[in-house]
């Protein structure tokens, strides 16, 4: 069924190589996008819980804006609209980036900012789930707000939300496929191209589906491993944690495409 993957495509490369190249773009987008999203989301999520009203409101606005516009529309905004709104020289420079990069960077920014809003909500939930006594104890020890966050609250909150971050990791790798709408030849786009050239739709989509399934499995395993490693010794027994983890992973279910 998958023999078509060894046939030569219109550009002289094997179709299997097309898929691998698509996988490469999917993985790069997901990987770099995730770390950017995590960094931004961490800052914004903390921002939502700090005393300073201005920072809290700005963080809230960030989350509402990036969470409430479809990722496809955000993709169009970064690709079509932002270069037009920037000063002409910068806009032109962006528009003239050579092919894969001209789509890759807007897609990367888009997915990072979108996913960051979702990560921020998880971080906030993690911080709010901590008992008030932690903050009070840190204050009683004379720690500043900044140090309280970095030394006491954030390390605990992050451990709590590892399970729900799993669904965000799965969300970002699935959302990479939206980049095909601005012309990035990631995995789904390559599969469609193979299907259109060869009419072997079943094999083309089937291969892509299997690759996505393996990515999902890998993402899930990786996050479970992190969860195990990051657990604080002496907290909740494994059995109970497992059910909590399932609950946490499923309930705040987010990005679906």
């Amino acid at each position, binding site marked *: 069924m998958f023999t078509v993957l060894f046939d030569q495509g219109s550009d002289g490369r094997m179709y299997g190589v097309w898929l691998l190249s698509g996988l490469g773009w999917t993985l790069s987008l997901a990987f770099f996008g995730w770390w950017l999203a995590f960094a931004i989301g961490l800052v914004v999520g903390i921002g939502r819980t700090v005393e300073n009203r201005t920072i809290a409101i700005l963080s809230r606005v960030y989350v509402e804006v990036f969470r409430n*516009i479809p990722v496809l529309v955000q993709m169009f905004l970064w690709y079509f609209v932002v270069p037009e709104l920037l000063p002409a020289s910068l806009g032109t420079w962006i528009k003239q980036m050579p092919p894969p990069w001209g789509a890759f960077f807007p897609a990367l920014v888009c997915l990072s900012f979108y996913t960051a809003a979702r990560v921020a909500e998880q971080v906030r939930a993690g911080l709010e789930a901590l008992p008030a006594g932690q903050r009070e104890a840190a204050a009683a020890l004379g720690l500043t707000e900044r140090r309280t966050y970095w030394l006491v609250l954030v390390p605990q909150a992050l451990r709590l939300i590892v399970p729900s971050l799993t669904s965000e990791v799965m969300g970002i790798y699935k959302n990479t496929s939206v980049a095909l709408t601005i012309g990035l030849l990631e995995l789904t786009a390559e599969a469609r191209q193979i299907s259109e050239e060869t009419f072997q*739709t079943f094999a083309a989509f089937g291969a892509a589906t299997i690759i996505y399934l393996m990515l999902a499995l890998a993402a899930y395993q990786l996050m479970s491993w992190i969860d195990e490693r990051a657990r604080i010794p002496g907290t909740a027994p494994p059995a109970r944690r497992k059910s909590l983890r399932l609950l946490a992973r499923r309930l*705040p279910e987010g990005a679906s495409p």
Partner: protein
Amino acid sequence: MSQLDFSVVFDNLPYLWQGLRFSLLLTAVAFAAGMVLGTGLALLQHLEVPVGAQLARGYVALIRSIPLILVLFWFFFLVPLMLGALMNGGRPMPIGGVWTAFITFSLFEAAYYSEIIRVGLRSVSKGQYEAAQALSLSTYKTYRFVILPQVVRVTSPIILNQTIILFQDTSLVYVLSLTDLVGAASKLAQLNGRLVEMYLAVAAVYLVICCTASQLVAYLRRRTQLNQNR
């Protein structure tokens, strides 16, 4: 950069409204069908129905692991084949993008709703099932009158949030060249070259609708929490 001119948006409001109506209709259909199917999938797993439970689990895991766009492509390709095999003596029955969208979103959302409902089912304490049993309610009546009403209460904020995401996801029918809100905007944008205004306007519409909806959900959640603490 040319001056922003939103008159192109206002001149085409009827067409954009038509697109938005399709987005809303698709959301409503996928919500209704997805909830019914999702409840079924969740119950198959919860009741450990032989074979059915495994199939449901496999289906949900599969659908949740692959991007919606790929699922749309799959169904655009598969549904005519399946319908053909069933009703047209093996010849594919092309059904067009609109029907593909309705079917795909219903089946896709069913997987996501079923996960929410499944967790909701597990959150009802064992004692509730036992009390219903002890009162000699049948399995059907236990779920109908005791368990599902509680599941609906517990999960409704999450279900509604998922539905807001669904509404946003319907924009992906763009890849089937359908005329939802984004589709309408992009067709107009290509016609008159006003991409910036069009996409900004669409973003604003989604922002307003989804923000309002999520505020409503948050309000609902606070109110039900209050009710529980009465």
